[in-house]
């Protein structure tokens, strides 16, 4: 059963990033629990997954630059800066909320 191997998570985009993801702010996803090497999936894995599977826009560099989430985007795991949670190495848990926020500059 795939359901046992999948993790339900919520991925949200704000600050304009939603434009790269079909103008949808909130995505309820079901992602595999293990990556191709059999390791538990991480937020770093999720970023690649989003680029490959969810993003239709060709401007990948607006989301990922040199293999990292581009400067100016905050990644929040359950409303906490991912730097408090181990950054890209954080292992995804069922029902996690991963929020990507592009900083705004206007005033």
């Amino acid at each position, binding site marked *: 059963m795939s359901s046992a191997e999948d993790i339900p998570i919520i991925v949200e985009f704000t600050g*304009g990033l939603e434009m790269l993801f079909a103008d949808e*702010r909130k995505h309820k996803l079901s992602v595999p629990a293990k990556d191709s090497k059999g390791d538990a999936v991480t937020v770093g894995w999720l970023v690649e997954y989003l680029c490959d599977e969810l993003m239709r826009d*060709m*401007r990948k560099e607006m989301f990922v630059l040199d293999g990292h989430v581009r400067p100016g985007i*905050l990644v929040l795991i359950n409303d906490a800066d991912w730097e*408090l949670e181990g950054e890209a190495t954080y292992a995804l848990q069922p029902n996690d909320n991963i929020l990507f926020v592009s900083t705004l*500059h*206007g*005033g």
Partner: protein
Amino acid sequence: MDSATKTAERLRIQIAATEEQLKNLKGQLADLEAQSLGNSFQNVSVQEELDPVTHEKWPLAAEDYKRYGRQMIVPNIGIQGQLRLKNASVLIVGAGGLGCPAAAYIAGAGVGTIGIVDGDEVETSNLHRQILHSTSKVGMKKVDSAILYLKSLNPNLKYNAHTSHLTPENSQGIVSQYDLVLDCTDHPTSRYLISDICVLLQKPLVSASALRTDGQLIVLNSPPLLAGNEAGGPCYRCVFPKPPPAESVVSCGDGGILGPVVGVMGVLQALEATKLIASGKLTSSGSEEAKKDASMLLFSTNSNPPFRSVRLRSRRPKCFACSAEAGLTLEGLSSGSLDYVLFCGINVPVSILGRDERIEAKEYAKLKTENRTDHLLVDVREKVQFDICSIEGSVNVPFSSFQGSRFKEGDGKQPTWIPQSLPPDAPIYVVCRLGNDSQVVTKRLKESGLNKNGRYIGDIKGGLKSWKEQVDSSWPEY
């Protein structure tokens, strides 16, 4: 920098910090004295210290009790909070969509000294959101316009006009005069500069931003402890060590902004400032107890709930500005050795087409009126802009739709937006607002092979801005 200069620099910072502390202690003493005055005005020994000329019994003027009464009876403020507001000085950098509402509430609350920094002049396109300015003030310096409004709102305060933009060179002289800074600017370059000078001068910073329907708010460098003290609040560089790529930075002029969205963010800045001042947490000594996590408040008009607070990291151990290893110094900053424009990068105008791939607006107009050939004019602005005004006969294919998977380069198929009736060799002209996106699209159309039947594909140089200048002066400028 040799070690002597470095030591001198560190001493200067320590002296500034100590002076700041002394100022704070004096302020606390004044508060206490004022309080005992408020509590026991019959105390003769206190009365003797009153102003010999006016013999005021009360720490505030009679009018002030009326003016601020409704906020003073809120338990979090009280007479002590009001006196702290009166003795405080706040610098508002930017007199725009954030700065206007922030300044109005800060002046209304009775902050004793208010400085405003801005080098711009009022434009008509500001008026839907920059509520201190008005139609009759178009062309006036924003700072002067703002202060004119604030003086009529509350004439009992001191207002300082700083009528040029904040620069690395002038920032120390300006910011050092104030207790607290509000970043109400609109670009990463100024955001990094303001954060840096606030760290160096140990000023707490309330920073906000807004675009379209979203806003963000962070209180930085609070408590404003010396660089290297991990108990201090994070700075802008702790949260954003690297600036965003210039092409990802969207201004309100390009992306749009709703007045109430930026308004709510400016009002929240005023609220945070009021909280910090009235609670006595402006300086390091006032905010020793209970170090809390820094947080960022996100506002999204179309989200439910619209407000969301997220937890941010504390000071970054290797932060360029606020860590023990900081490379930032007052000397370096004010000498101009930090190039913030270079650091953040500049969005240069697109220039990827040859001369023969572009035509002037007036040339296109001529060709259109003479109706020489069948052709197609493709307007690549977003639909909301196309709906405001468009050239007759043009078709709208938004720039963003070229970014999706709908139109892949070289897939051989003709895009659906090309009418069947268009001859295969009929020219295609591409137009946008300013003549940048149109070049990108022209290039992509050619790469996709649409020009293979000898068809001309080119863009209108300077976009619809040139169309207005050269062809149709009635064209709406939005």
